[in-house]
């Protein structure tokens, strides 16, 4: 019995609990523990990706209850990919946070680990209600992290964040209720089976459930017109928290892929979403990048960048074909990493600009113009999608994958034109921040090596993704192929040894009345 699929849940869970017990222990001990746990998470992520490269699915039946009755965790390439990405981003933002941010409030360390636990559950679960639970865990943990450090702005943005997302949670519950009421199951694979042969009279109801659920994911994924909560929340959060949040929006995209590409994929249920997602994603991308172009504030600029990159990613998903999904996954990784790094950098820049903070107005020069300037330039290049970083490959692969779609004209036009918007936005921001300066800082605040290393690390990830783009794309191709093969998924989850045992028992019970 291998416990591999649950390790990404257990590890941060236990670490979080222990860190909670150690609330009053010394700072260095808590930092060390958190760093070790997160580093282990990275290792675990690598192991998971390694395991899934060759194998199909690993199904873990919690409580030893046979699928589809109990809750199952399903490890596949997509979930391994997401876990690894989460771990990498988390590790970098944690490195940044232990430079002092973590001590600006209580409970940073346990909340951080519990947040990771929530993310892991979301990526691994094969049960739609359990997905709801995962959303709750990560919502509440993220709310706690968002408030970390305090301040009027944060409390206000946090309130908006939590209220909007709680409304989303209610919607989630409602949708799951509808889906359960029609299909009688919560297991995703079982749902896939039952959605395939749902009675025509039941179809509208099931579709309603699926659509309401889609709206929840759209809120999480900041899809137009449900993205309002994002700029406020992300731009007011502390730099390392915002950096971690970069992965949070991706949960929405992940869930859309999981539910509408895999579970409901190819069934009549998904039809309205197929016609809805692409236009919404195109508008999201446009509006997000318009935001990048016009906003007078660096952190908000990065927040709009999050929305824009979600748009790009969901365009790839919304094309609903294997090639574009693979391109989308590549872009997902790129988008997460670049936005994370940008949030960290924005934190540093804001620290060094005196009272102007991150407002894009002429102000004193930053204390380390060369270093921060080079990093900003590189990250802007990556964000716009210019060479030589991974944004270029991501964009090229998405554009290339759209060639067989009817919407190719729209996709290309929007993706290319919005790239210009980001170009304008970032060049404006960069020239104001680093060039249009008035005098040297009176009391220079300098970033430490510990602040810089995570940003450089994230940049390094993008370099790796460019040079070894082939390997990454091979993996995302394989992941997309796995997602496109619904039957294999159903087979793997519905016919585990335990499930077969239970089915056999059922048969004998029927035969012997």
């Amino acid at each position, binding site marked *: 019995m291998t416990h591999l699929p649950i390790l990404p849940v*257990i590890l941060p869970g236990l670490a979080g609990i222990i860190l909670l017990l150690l609330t009053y222990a010394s700072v260095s001990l808590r930092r060390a523990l958190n760093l070790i746990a997160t580093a282990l998470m990275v290792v675990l992520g690598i192991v998971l990706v390694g395991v899934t490269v060759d194998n199909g699915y690993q199904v873990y039946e919690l409580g030893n209850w046979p699928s589809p009755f109990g809750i199952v965790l399903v490890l596949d390439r997509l979930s391994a990919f997401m876990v690894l990405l989460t771990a990498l981003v988390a590790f970098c933002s944690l490195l940044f946070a232990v430079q002092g941010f973590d001590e600006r409030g209580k409970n940073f360390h346990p909340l951080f680990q519990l947040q990771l636990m929530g993310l892991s559950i979301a990526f691994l679960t094969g049960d739609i209600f*359990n997905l709801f639970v995962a959303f709750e865990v990560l919502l509440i943990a993220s709310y706690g992290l968002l408030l970390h450090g305090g301040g009027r702005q944060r409390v206000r943005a946090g309130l908006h964040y939590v209220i909007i997302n709680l409304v989303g949670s209610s919607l989630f519950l409602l949708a799951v209720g509808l889906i359960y009421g029609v299909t009688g*199951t919560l297991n995703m694979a079982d749902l896939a089976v039952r959605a395939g042969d749902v009675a025509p009279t039941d179809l509208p109801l099931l579709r*309603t459930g699926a659509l309401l659920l889609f709206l929840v994911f759209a809120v999480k994924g900041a899809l137009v017109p449900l993205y309002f909560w994002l*700029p406020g929340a992300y731009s007011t959060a502390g730099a390392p928290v915002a950096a971690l949040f970069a992965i949070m929006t991706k949960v929405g995209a992940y869930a859309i892929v999981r539910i509408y590409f895999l579970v409901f994929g190819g069934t009549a249920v998904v039809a309205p979403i197929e016609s809805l997602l692409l236009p919404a994603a195109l508008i999201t991308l446009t509006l997000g990048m318009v935001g990048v172009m016009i906003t007078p504030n660096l952190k908000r600029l990065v927040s709009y960048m999050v929305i824009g990159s979600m748009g790009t990613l969901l365009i790839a998903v919304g094309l609903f074909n294997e090639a574009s999904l693979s391109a989308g996954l590549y872009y997902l990784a790129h988008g997460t990493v670049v936005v994370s790094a940008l949030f960290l950098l924005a934190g540093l820049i804001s620290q060094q600009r005196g009272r102007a903070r991150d407002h894009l107005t002429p102000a004193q020069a930053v204390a380390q113009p060369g270093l921060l300037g080079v990093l900003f330039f590189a990250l802007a290049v990556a964000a716009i999608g210019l060479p030589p970083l991974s944004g270029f490959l991501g964009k090229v692969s998405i554009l290339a994958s759209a060639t067989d779609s009817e919407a190719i004209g729209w996709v290309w036009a929007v993706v290319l034109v919005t790239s210009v918007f980001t170009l304008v936005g970032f060049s404006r921001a960069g020239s104001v921040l680093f060039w249009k300066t008035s005098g040297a800082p009176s009391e220079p605040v300098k970033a430490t090596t510990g602040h810089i290393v995570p940003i450089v690390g994230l940049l390094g990830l993008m370099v790796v993704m460019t040079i070894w*783009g082939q390997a990454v794309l091979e993996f995302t191709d394989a992941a997309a192929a796995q997602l496109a093969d619904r039957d294999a998924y159903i087979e793997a989850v519905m016919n585990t040894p335990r499930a077969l045992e239970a089915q056999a028992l059922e048969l004998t019970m029927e035969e012997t009345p």
Partner: protein
Amino acid sequence: MTAATSLITLIALPFLGSVIAAFLPSNARNREAWVAGALALGALAIVISLHSAVADGGVVRLQLPWVPLLGLEFSLRMDGFAWMFALLITGIGFLVVLYARYYMSPEDPVPRFFSFLLAFMGAMLGVVLSGNLIQLAFFWELTSLFSFLLIGYWHHTGAARDGARMALIITGTGGLALLGGILVLGHIVGSYELDVVLAAGDAIRAHPLYLPALLLILLGAFTKSAQFPFQFWLPDAMAAPTPVSAYLHSATMVKAGVFLLARLWPVLSGTQEWFWLVTAAGLSTLVLGAYLAMFQQDLKGLLAYSTISHLGLITLLLGMNTPIAAVAGIFHIMNHATFKASLFMAAGIIDHETGTRDMRRLRGLRKALPITATLAIVASAAMAGVPLMNGFLSKEMFYTEALHTTTPFPLLGELLTYAAVVWGIFSVIYSLRFIHGVFFGPPADDLPREPHEPPRWMRFPIELLVLACLLVGVIPGRTIEPYLHTAVQGVLGEATPEYSLAVWHGFTLPLMMSLGAMFGGIALYATLRRFLLNRVDGPPLVRLVGRRIFERTLVFLSWRLARPLEARLFTWRLQRQLLIMVVVTLLVATAVLWGTDFSLPPIDWSAISPGLALVWLAGMACAIGAAYMAKFHRLAALILLGGAGLATCVTFVWFSAPDLALTQLMVEIATTVLLLLGLRWLPRRIKDARSTVRERSRRLRDLVIACVAGGGLGGLAFLVMTRPLPDSIARFFVERAYSEGGGTNIVNVILVDFRGFDTFGEITVLGIVALTVYALLRRFRPAPESIQRPKQQRLAAAHDDAHAARPRGDSIPQHMLVPSVIMRLMFPAAGALAIYLFLRGHNMPGGGFVGGLTLAIAIILQYMTGGTRWFEARWRINAVRWIALGLLCAAATGLGSWLFGHPFLTSHTRYIEIPLLGALPFASALLFDVGVFLLVVGATALLLLALAHQSIRSHRGQGVPAPTVSRKEKS
């Protein structure tokens, strides 16, 4: 070194140098120049050594796999044409490095300069040597980026910042368009490899996507090469240091556009579309650039517009669809690079030596700078196309072609001829301005600096380039012809036409045109000289709007439009956000259900019990009342909310769900009490009596939306609950709860066993909520009006003060004496009830959640009746630890099953023999439930603590003792 490895070294060298230069100390001007110069020279040597490999139409290739999945190889390819460009890039690059060594001031951060310059050189080499079109676009964008950094090098000036930004935006946008075009091309051909694409010309031209591909690619090329209407970024890029201008505007950057046009000439040209688009752009740029150049007062401005004009010429030649014109275009690329680089350097020397570039102030420099003057005069002559200069040769070829071009419209052919002559006249005029205006006449005496000849080696690059201009112009056959042939073969291959580079073709019509233009130019210059000199900077008649539109747009976007647009698109207002969310949900649900023919099942009114109906009516009234009161009467709203909750509770009992009812009841009690405690700290809200029509209509709208959404929700719920149950997984739970879960209370078995993982997640949520609320309230500072003690406490304190015998703070404990004694007596009983509810949970209504809540409520009551200090003096609950232990207990129970080789949270049931009690059923899930119990107590207590400590904190320092209960002694 094989040819292929030479290629990769060639590309790598500049980037390597860039990295090295970046890390050198900022005062090491010589060392950086040495590094940069040596590397550029090395690259040049490699290029020269590769000549034999490409001389006779040979091609050197190097392919490394990069991302084959995207059709991307790292592919280098050098043919004659690429070789020629590589030669220009490295050769002029080396000269520019040498020149910059003397030009740059020691105060400038020189490492950065050389680092960017070398990186730019590398990117440019990447463009010309790419064997894969995507890779070409890749390097293309890199040139935009590095040119941005180079132009913005002196970023303390606004001109440099704006110029750099404009160049980046225009050329970067073009690069994106180019990428689009290349993707289309790749889609047509099926490969991005240049070799494959070049071989597929017919297929490309015949394809329906040809036009979009062409448009996108031309957009890329035209923006880069500053073709009309995108020419406006180039003059502003003159804010760069002069060596940068010399490099970017002669051999590189702007030449990338025409490079691409020539590179794809074999596959894209030959169609009407190509002819019209490229010729039109080239022709208008040619004339416009030359016209504007005449009216510049800045030396570099003149050269910038002249560059635009010459690029227009090259574009025009490439657009003419004849191989011989293409040859002329390629030839002119080389000629223009040599004379323009030298002219920029000369302008730089003049600027460096005199301190100004304004032609209205410069005169008679011939005396002070004799050698530089001679060199600049020769180079200008080449620019004007004077015979025996290289510029003359390509101009003659252009004239010949302009005369012979065949178009469907004869008128156009004539127009082309006249335009060519007019262009010739303009060129002569602006070249004369450079020569005559600057170097001749009486020496100026009001220059910022006294001019001297520059250092020997600063002049050397110009000397070399001017020599090249002369040699090519005088003996083209011996010097340039074989190399030009190599380059032309690279583009045209077998279609290479016969051509002759002879200086003397006899008295032909082109020569007549040349001479006419020259004398016309001289005559016109003589007439207009004063007029030109006394003007402000800029041309008459034509006012170019491109740049203005660009700047206005940027300003508009980033200032005027930005704020309202941001406020509208990304509203901060929660109410609007929620409204949108609800409306979207409604719309989406309606859209799906619209048109489908199903209706609500008929309702059997007689089956509804009047009692339940009444409860529901009351519940609904409470809910609506709560919403109505929520804004101004929070207390009333809260009480009404409790009423709605109770109705739910009764409903659960009615439908035989005692577990749910019990839980609901406990939750209602705990939340209502905690909310009440919190309510005290909220500031009062004053109702504004005047409500406008707009406000009222908004509320009405909200009411309607709320009713529709609520009604829809109810309808959906009703629909689902009244339809026949599907074959659901619930059956399994009913069947196995006792046999395998070891409990008869199915709800509890589901919670702690079947779906224990969900419960694990949810208790985590509860724990985090408590932690977060505590953290939030720790920083909470109440509104000033809420800080005052409640009325009751103030009355009691006044009473104490009035009676001398009573110490202050005595009354309240006495008031609370009876309830607090009762509660203290009740506490053990409540605790026992909690444990009882907890223990029986697996088989009867109860369980860890309800048990925990019961204990928590008991604790809340103690706090309320006894007071915070009294209770904490006796039992200080470390609530955070309870939460942690609860989670740990649940997780450890789950992990325990690993020891038995079962998955996480597998439970085990057995009967355990206990003395006195006999065999009792025991499920390991009970341990899990202990975790739930602990956590619920801890979380509720933490919420309570947050509120209780708030009241202690707020009153501290007011001179009034908190309502401590010092009753202990008295009672």
